[in-house]
């Protein structure tokens, strides 16, 4: 076994809840209306999958692999329940899941749950907090009601404020909001309003995503048939620039292309992805990077539940990147962080010298002012952020 692949500092656990009350027209994630399935059976299957994977040696902490088990220490530093919308689960089922996780890994450094602002109240939030959740991520998306309607969101603008205040009220300090810009019909003004509203709510973290036209979504089809016209590229660009400016002015640090946090409130779970550290994904359509393998679970609730219940594998896709691929993936993911590639860490993690491995694109992009290097790190410049893919693609293979 390649010991290098286990030489990581942290690992995350992700649980995917593929349920939604209704599907939003832009969403490319796997989810189904909750009415069609038994949430009790799904949660049982998720717990079974989790327990089974826990039993596999790969799930044990590195210290355990090396024979010095440290009792009581959580192996997963971070836990994240996302979706879909986990908050559309019956509270009982959600708490059962959280209870199961915390009984196996008590006191993780960070335990996030995604919630839909229309689906939570003080009571539920309080129970989540008691159960061990430390961070709330709220799918706010926009503070313009016509934009929420356009997206097919069922919550209202008022719901967002209510959800934030409730979360604060029950003692959550670490609250994040997700926002979407470049929604058709939005303007620089409406986007600024959304940003300001989010800032004014006093949250600690904001993720701001340009609306992505995912394949096979109703929104994508509406664009193809000319029913929807995307926001033009220049406005999209200006909205993004405005995001960075406004949030930095408000004391948020941009630590990744789309992520902003008050100091100390960066999402540790997501940082783990961009560090290219391992994580285990549980549930339908969940992705894992475990023991050097990237896998995806079956994106079908029924097949997933049946598979787990019958003791079959629920892995639908699996790929083992070779050393070069790992280096490239690490580079691409690291470069999404404003801190970029930390050369020492990269070397330890992948065995490659990033400056040498990517000498060609580095040389080219330094000249164009899109990459900055110091003796310790290598990162995208602000100028490169809006066009990051055009730079990162040259790090995707060698």
């Amino acid at each position, binding site marked *: 076994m390649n010991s290098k692949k286990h030489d990581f500092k942290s690992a995350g656990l992700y649980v*995917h809840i593929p349920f939604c009350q209704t599907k939003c027209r832009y969403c490319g994630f796997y989810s189904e209306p909750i009415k069609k399935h038994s949430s009790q059976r799904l949660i049982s299957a998720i717990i079974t999958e989790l327990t089974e994977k826990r039993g596999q040696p790969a799930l044990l902490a590195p210290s355990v692999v090396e024979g010095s088990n440290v009792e009581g220490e959580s192996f997963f530093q971070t836990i994240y329940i996302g979706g879909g919308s986990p908050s559309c689960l019956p509270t009982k089922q959600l708490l059962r899941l959280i209870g199961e996780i915390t009984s196996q890994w008590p006191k993780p450094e960070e335990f996030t749950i995604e919630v839909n602002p229309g689906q939570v109240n003080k009571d539920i939030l309080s129970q989540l907090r008691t159960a061990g959740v430390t961070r709330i991520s709220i799918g706010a998306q926009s503070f313009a009601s016509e934009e929420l309607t356009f997206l097919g969101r069922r919550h209202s603008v008022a719901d967002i404020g209510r959800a934030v205040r409730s979360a604060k009220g029950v003692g959550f300090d670490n609250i994040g909001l997700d926002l979407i810009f470049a929604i058709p019909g939005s303007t620089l003004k409406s986007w600024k309003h959304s940003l300001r509203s989010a800032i004014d709510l006093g949250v600690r973290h904001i993720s701001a995503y340009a609306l992505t036209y995912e394949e096979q979504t109703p929104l994508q089809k509406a664009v193809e048939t000319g029913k929807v016209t995307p926001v033009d590229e220049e406005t999209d660009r200006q909205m993004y620039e405005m995001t960075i400016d406004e949030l930095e002015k408000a004391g948020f640090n941009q630590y990744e292309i789309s992520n902003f946090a008050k100091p100390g409130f960066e999402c540790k779970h997501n940082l783990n992805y961009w560090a290219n550290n391992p994580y285990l994904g549980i549930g339908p359509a969940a*992705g894992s990077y475990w023991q050097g393998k990237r896998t995806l679970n079956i994106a079908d609730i029924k097949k997933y539940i049946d598979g787990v219940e019958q003791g079959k594998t629920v892995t639908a*896709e699996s790929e083992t990147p070779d050393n070069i691929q790992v280096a490239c993936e690490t580079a*691409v993911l690291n470069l999404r962080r404003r801190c970029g590639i930390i050369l020492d860490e990269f070397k330890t993690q992948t065995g490659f010298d990033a400056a040498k491995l990517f000498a060609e694109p580095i040389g080219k992009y330094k000249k*164009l002012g899109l990459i900055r290097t110091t003796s310790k790190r290598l990162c995208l410049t602000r100028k490169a952020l809006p*066009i990051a*893919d055009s730079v990162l693609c040259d790090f995707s*293979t060698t």
Partner: protein
Amino acid sequence: MSTELIRNFSIIAHIDHGKSTLADRIMEITGLVSDREKKDQLLDDMDIERERGITIKASAVTMNYEHAGKTYMLNLIDTPGHVDFHYEVSRALTACEGALLVVDATQGVQAQTVANAYLATEAGAEIIGVINKVDLPSAQPDITAEEIEHVLGIKKLDCFHISAKTGMGVHELLDAVVTLLPPPPDNSDKPTAALVFDSECDEYRGVICYVRVFSGELNIKQKIRFMGTGRTHLITELGKFTPKMSPVERLSAGEVGYVIANVRQLSDITIGDTITDDASPVDKPLPGYVPPMQMVFSDFYPGNNTDYPNLRLAFEKLALNDASFSFIPQNSPALGFGFRCGFLGLLHMEIVQERLERENDIDVVQTAPTVSYEVITTDGRTLKIDSPSDLPDTTQIEELREPYVRLEIITTTDTIGGIMQLSESRRCKLIKTDYLSQNRVMMQYKAPLAEIVYDFYDLLKGISHGYATMDYEFIGFEVGDLVKINILVNKIPVDALSLIVHRSVAENRGRKMLVRLRKAIPRHQFEIPLQVAIGGKIIARESIKPFRKDVTAKLYGGDVTRKMKVLKRQREGKKRMKNIGAVQIPQDAFMSILDTSD
């Protein structure tokens, strides 16, 4: 065997007039192929030929045919049917005493019918007029016969009416081959002289020469000499195509077959060369062929410089089976190391391109095709210029000459106006107009090759709703008032984007080139200025605005594999382009500069 019983003939026709079908039927009738083993169009053995319905290489088959109680040996030499392959047609025709000129009764005489008839006459071959597809409801055999008589001087009453598809009339036609075409002269007692009219390279056996023995004989194990190259070889195998290779002991005067003599590479032999006996040679080689004349040139550069050796290998392989294709190393300041390739014409170029792509996995950047120019320098030298970038400085040019062709267009009378307009805009001079029948006309032009080589044919087809056909033949170089257009991309002059054009259209063309390039070069991370210069003076500018947004908004755990693939694809897309400074130029940009449409 006496040559009295031998007939060597070709089938010549306009494309799609039924040449290959007739060849199949003849082989069927002579028992060479049974129905079951028959594949359509047996003579075409390359995929591309089959797909495009074009025969590239001349092939030869030997058949037996009974007539009036005697068994005749018929050698059918296949010829390509397209405008670019005059040279190969002429090679095949020289090896024959006669030719069947096939005309589609639904289409009538077409441009290549006329061109092929000329070639056959030049080669001294007897022509039998054949009207094909007479079984179709739309056939007009009488009008077609009139046209044949009018344009080609073959009596309409002497034409054979056949249907190659059903076999109707083919027996009678074969009887005519025997009775009307002359046998080859009997020179078997003279010293050996055989003409190499084609060649092919076999992976295992080396070069296979297609030969026509004119005098003496070829024997197995004979020591032969290729008179042109002076090389001597021992014949290891002789044979005929039936249509498989069937070895024989001897090929005598008048016969057609193949020779294998330990020749490794196609480049070791010259098409048109004479094979003679090394010990008792003939005094003079046979009147050979004119060497192939490459009229169209284009540079090929590997997308990735490290692929240069692979590209060379690929071209060497292609040249093995295509003697009319040439390539020489070329170094472009903008594009690096590559090759200047010469082709018979544009179609020939496309075929080579396709084979290159099909048989090799190399990304190639190809420059716009250009014709060959002649420069008389101020110090009296004559230079052959195959690329605008090789053009000397204007101060050193006394005269710049461009190639001219005789262009024949056959069309319907209602489209004359449009065609005359097109021809005029391309500097073509009408020589004569000849009415083939009431509503069809042949127009003969003197045309600068550069003007008709690229999109002329497509435009002609468009104007004439697909009816017009054209053919051309090189006639010579003539002085022209020509200038070079230079393009600067991001302030760097790109030699591979330069073009030689007539002064009267230069400015207009230059502006069009910029518009094309602005569309063909994708947006970059920065603004790209495009400039066009004529004689060192910038006459127009354009700019390609940078893209403003290109970033994946979300990249988390489950997305990594998929997003990495998307990024890799994006990078692959870039790699297929050519780097000029920091600008990536896609393949079609190099071609786009020739597009003159509005």
